[in-house]
């Protein structure tokens, strides 16, 4: 059975060198829109989208370019938010150090989980990451510092570097936007580097990459660790914004949500996870009053996307443009 298809969406012409200019213009327009967005939309909503979008981008790095479906990314997202929250609330650390320690934690957790998970491929990899994340969930549930069902609450919003006052929501938005752009450029750089090319080669045909002399496990591990660290950055930023770290962020439902966002936006597309995150967060906001139905609607979205639109929103649009051209 062929292993492709999941990756076809990544092959949009926008990534070729000839199209470099127009895609650069597109990104600059999007950045300009992001800069003026708080004038139109509620900043906290935008911040939430950015945090979750960064999480989805981190997840997509692994599935879209490494072909590895992690069903346990909540352990990095939620784990980092616990550590950052604890460092800032109990140890009184400044914001930037708090975020840093969260990222360091998720990166180290990524090393450990990665070493275990990459020993199996394909569908087993998904099951192993899911199981490891569930273990991390139980550990956090039982550790006293996480506050059990209550979580860590009232994490202070301290001025970044001592002078950028993030108590103001608009300022906060621009700080988070900076973090997001950093994360986005980091991922963009990674997937367009020689490392990213080897990763794609492994995704397409691991045996051939091995025979070409690449230590495929090392590449996969590094991709996993990078993805974990970035997911941690998203989680750490989220705790600064919402001032709370809870069990919700380490559950398998959260791991599933990031899969859904990336799937909706387009697996393996550069910008798909951001679009997917925006769609899902908007959906959750509007549907919040429906209670249990939110889950049902998310499930239906999953089924529809998998059955009919496997390339996701961005992937389908790219395919459409391709066909017209």
């Amino acid at each position, binding site marked *: *059975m*062929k*292993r*492709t*298809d*999941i990756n076809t969406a990544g092959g949009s012409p926008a990534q070729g060198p000839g199209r470099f200019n127009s895609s650069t213009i597109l990104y600059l327009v999007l950045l300009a829109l992001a800069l003026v967005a708080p004038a139109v939309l509620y900043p906290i909503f935008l911040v939430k989208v950015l945090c979750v979008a960064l999480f989805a981008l981190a997840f997509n790095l692994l599935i879209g370019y490494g072909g590895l*479906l992690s*069903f346990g990314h909540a352990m990095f997202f939620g784990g980092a938010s616990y550590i950052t929250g604890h460092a800032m609330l109990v140890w009184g650390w400044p914001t930037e150090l708090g975020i840093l320690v969260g990222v360091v934690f998720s990166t180290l957790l990524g090393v450990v989980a990665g*070493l*275990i*998970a990459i*020993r*199996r491929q*394909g*569908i*087993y990899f*998904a*099951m*192993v990451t*899911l*199981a*490891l994340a*569930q*273990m991390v969930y*139980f*550990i956090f*549930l*039982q550790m006293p510092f996480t506050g059990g069902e209550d979580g860590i609450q009232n994490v202070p919003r301290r001025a970044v570097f001592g002078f950028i006052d993030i108590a103001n929501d608009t300022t906060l938005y621009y700080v988070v936007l900076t973090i997001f752009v950093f994360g986005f450029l980091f991922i963009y750089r990674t997937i367009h580097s020689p490392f990213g090319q080897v990763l794609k080669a492994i995704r397409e045909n691991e045996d051939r990459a091995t025979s070409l002399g690449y230590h495929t496990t090392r590449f996969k591990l590094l991709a996993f660790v990078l993805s974990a660290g970035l997911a941690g950055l998203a989680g750490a930023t989220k705790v600064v914004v919402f001032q709370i770290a809870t069990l919700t962020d380490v559950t*398998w439902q959260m791991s*599933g949500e990031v*899969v859904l966002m990336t*799937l909706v936006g387009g697996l393996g597309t550069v910008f798909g996870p951001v679009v997917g995150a925006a769609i899902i967060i908007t959906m959750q906001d509007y549907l919040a009053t429906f*209670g*249990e*139905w*939110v*889950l*049902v609607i*998310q*499930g*239906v*979205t*999953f*089924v529809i996307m*998998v*059955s009919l639109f*496997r390339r996701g929103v961005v992937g389908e649009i790219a395919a459409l443009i391709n066909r017209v051209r």
Partner: protein
Amino acid sequence: MLDVLNISMPMLFGQLTLGLINGAFYALLSLGLAVIFGLLNVVNFVHGTQYMLGALFAWMLLHYLGIPYWGALLLAPVGVGLVGAVIEVTLLRRLYSVDHLYGMLLTFGLVLIIEGFFRWLYGASGMPYSNPLPGGTNLGFMFAPNYRLWVVVFSVAVCFGVWYLIERTKLGSYLRAAIERPDLVQAFGINVPRMITLTYAFGAALAGLAGVLAAPIYQVNPLMGSNLIIVVFAVVVIGGMGSIMGAIVTGFGLGIIEGLTKMIYSEASNTIIFVIMAIVLLIKPAGLFGSQK
């Protein structure tokens, strides 16, 4: 040694029985998961939900139609099997030609739909299901509740029945052949698509059967399946999906280990199976009974 750990014999046997029962559920679920994966190449995420449906159907049969446990033991798995057949024919079938990951994602979506619906209908708190075999039996070394004895004996019988069906009968040989070379089996005149539907329905029905058995022990809860399925995934990774007997032995073994952990160091009982999975992956990545493909 037991005195040192401050453990009484009745407690030991009590936990062992409960461990055996959980092990039976692990075995039944990982059996179905392995057979489904073997033939369909789909990791059936909705397997835990099918277990929940078994318990819930049993509860509904009793609650709305007055059909007692023994009727439900037959009817509920059949119902779950039918639901499974519908899922296979309408949804899963379209995904066999694409990456296996999509099958997992689709069934994950089904988990959200089914669980969300029943949570909306019945809430997240458990609903009691009365014990059909009250009382207990004194076995000499322990006092065992009748119902738990029944579950252990019955589920062991079912596990070995399935093993016999797959490994020793003509029907099972078709199934094993179709797992290896579906195209060849089709060429010999066997309707492979129908076989796939029936296999999926059978796996789902096994999960449903485990659910009915679980109903009187644990409360019937729309969420009872989703946490279980993750443990079962770990069990499958530990055992490897290659062998039916391997799935049975691993399931029961891990259930017992989990039960003992609950007694010796209860804080670790939730995580012990995942820890074992990590160790097995580091030492023997293909799983205890698996072969690396």
